[in-house]
């Protein structure tokens, strides 16, 4: 997407990922054909409402979905760490990897920050032990050294008195602090790819600003690539080089943040931006999107946004639009029959 580095292989290349859940109520098409490429040091932002498939796509890449009910129906996710530290020179498809090999990649090459800092730490373990475990498992670092690295990383993420805090238990930390511990844990192994699922949603704005700044620093410093998932468009716009807008399991629009937010090509993106209360827009009624997101177990045959779309034509009800771009912007793809 960044264009100028076309000769280098993408670090992660995901093609046509489809994840369906087979439930008693039918097949839930949580992710229905997502494709993207991320290069070294690049940030991909994924925005969408709850149930749009943002988290499921990433859990699928990490091999963290329980199968069944989940089933990866199609797709490849080629991870190419040839430029990474411990180079596995052959590209590997994460979706076809056996659990053991995947475990070696997870936490080492690809790590993830989960949404809930309250439930993702082990309450029975001191945070120092939880942190050094990462390095001792993945890099066979000696305990002393791992502990020292943990102290330094806690300091980086802005935990005061890290040498004292490292021997504390998770319940002794506030929500914002726990989220920073999670972030420290994810960054300890200096991963090639960081998947951050709503990393700042539970945090206050001032703490959110600190965390976003930290991710930005590490991105330049160690050339880390990031997949940033959020429902907050401001957060995503701030950090991302490319953005995917998801609706009902599909990427309805994909391109550079500047263009997407200023001149959205898809009616959903446009409606979402217009419905946000924003600085200096005054008191007028917000142009809200009517209705609610669709039930993923009984999606309409055509475009899933059609019932809520003010531009909808009759063709939208029956045919899901193919991806297309505008001639002047080949880098941006969107799925819509209408030119808005």
């Amino acid at each position, binding site marked *: 997407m960044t264009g100028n580095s076309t000769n280098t292989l993408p670090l992660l290349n995901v093609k046509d990922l489809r994840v369906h859940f087979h439930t008693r109520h039918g097949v839930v098409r949580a992710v229905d054909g997502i494709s993207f490429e991320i290069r070294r040091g690049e940030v991909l932002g994924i925005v969408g*409402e*709850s149930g749009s498939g943002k988290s499921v796509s990433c859990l699928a890449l990490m091999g963290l979905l329980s199968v069944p009910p989940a089933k990866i129906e199609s797709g490849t996710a080629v991870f190419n760490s040839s430029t990474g530290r411990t180079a596995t020179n052959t590209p590997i498809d994460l979706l076809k990897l056996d659990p053991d090999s995947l475990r070696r990649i997870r936490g080492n090459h690809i790590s993830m920050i989960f949404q809930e800092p309250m439930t993702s730490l082990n309450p029975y373990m001191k945070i120092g032990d939880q942190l050094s475990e990462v390095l001792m498992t993945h890099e066979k670092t000696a305990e002393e050294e791992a502990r020292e690295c943990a102290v330094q990383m806690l300091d980086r993420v*802005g935990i*005061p008195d890290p040498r004292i805090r490292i021997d504390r238990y998770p319940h002794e930390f*506030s*929500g*914002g*602090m726990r989220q920073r511990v999670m972030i420290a844990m994810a960054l300890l192994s200096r991963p090639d790819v960081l998947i951050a699922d709503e990393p700042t949603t539970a945090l*206050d*704005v*001032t*703490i*959110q*600003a*600190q965390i*976003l*700044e930290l991710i930005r620093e590490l991105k330049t410093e160690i050339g880390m690539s990031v997949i940033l998932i959020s*429902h*907050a*468009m*401001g*957060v995503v*716009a*701030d950090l991302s080089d490319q953005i995917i807008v998801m609706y009902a399991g599909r990427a309805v629009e994909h391109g550079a*943040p*500047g263009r997407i*937010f*200023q001149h959205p090509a898809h009616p959903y993106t446009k*409606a*979402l*931006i217009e*419905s*946000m*209360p*924003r*600085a*200096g*827009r005054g*008191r007028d*009624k*917000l*142009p*809200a*999107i*009517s209705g*609610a*997101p669709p039930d993923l177990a009984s999606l309409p045959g055509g475009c899933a946004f059609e019932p809520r779309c003010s531009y909808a034509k009759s063709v939208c009800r029956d045919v899901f639009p193919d991806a297309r771009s505008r001639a002047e912007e080949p880098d941006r793809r969107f799925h819509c029959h209408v030119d808005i």
Partner: protein
Amino acid sequence: MSISERSLLKISDLKVHFPIHKGVFWQKEIGTVKAVDGVSLSLVRGEVLGLVGESGSGKSTLGRAVIGLNRVRSGSIWFDGAELTGLSRKQFQPFRSKIQIIFQDPYSSLNPRMTVYDILSEPLRIHDPCGKSERRRRVAEMLEQVGLAARHVNRFPHEFSGGQRQRIAIARALIVRPELVIADEPVSALDVSIQAQILNLLQDLRRQFDLTMIFISHDLAVVEHISDRVAVMYLGKIMEIAGRDGLYAKPLNPYTQALISAVPTIDVTHRPKRIILNGIIPSPNNPPSGCRFHTRCPHAEVRCRTEEPPLAEFAPAHSSACWFSSRWM
């Protein structure tokens, strides 16, 4: 003072403290959390006051104190000329229908075993006894006013989406025709596309029911959209209070400035310089001396560490608690 005559709600020097107990049977009091520590403000009829601040700033505690859910340590709350502080449960009863609250999480604030009819008719039964057919009629009417269909009365909360549940919670608060509504983060748990629907609904209902409202939120953009005046809280104190336009256009307190600058925007072309605050909000059981914000303030000087700045008026109806507010006039 004429303002106190016109004001529907007047809070003066309110303190809400929670004791911290320890020891066998939790008998020993080892400290207090000063959740609200000397707040004064007033609301005129028909006004919407936005209350913003980080978690732990005391904004929810303040709202809950107004409806009598938190015991007040000192100070007073006056509602429509009557003092609410010090009232017994029984004496408070007549005010409960006049002051209602909407909670943040529509998943936990509705009883899952009650139908929509039960949920909406219960406050009527308690506060405004009327015949069964009259109750049915009013429940149906209220449902339509919040954008739900009257035929939904026999459904249970789990049959509704988050946005619809919040509509039910709003209906429950408004069915007894309150004069003052405390809305505690009413849209924070909702998806972006649903947030706008609920904000619009609150705007409509505000006009229709002639409501006075305290709108509590950590989201500065949402507060800007709905409020007439905004109060910014930090560690139990009001740092700045002003008319909405004044506060957002020309914040006079460094804390407000930092909060506003920290909001991520989608406008990638001209982005204001972000003020990154160091550290986290200090613990309210041991707030910093002097100005409570001095530990994180980029402009703090020696004086701020020892002397606490009063909330002083720097422009008409624009007050700030900072020694240096005149710098940003």
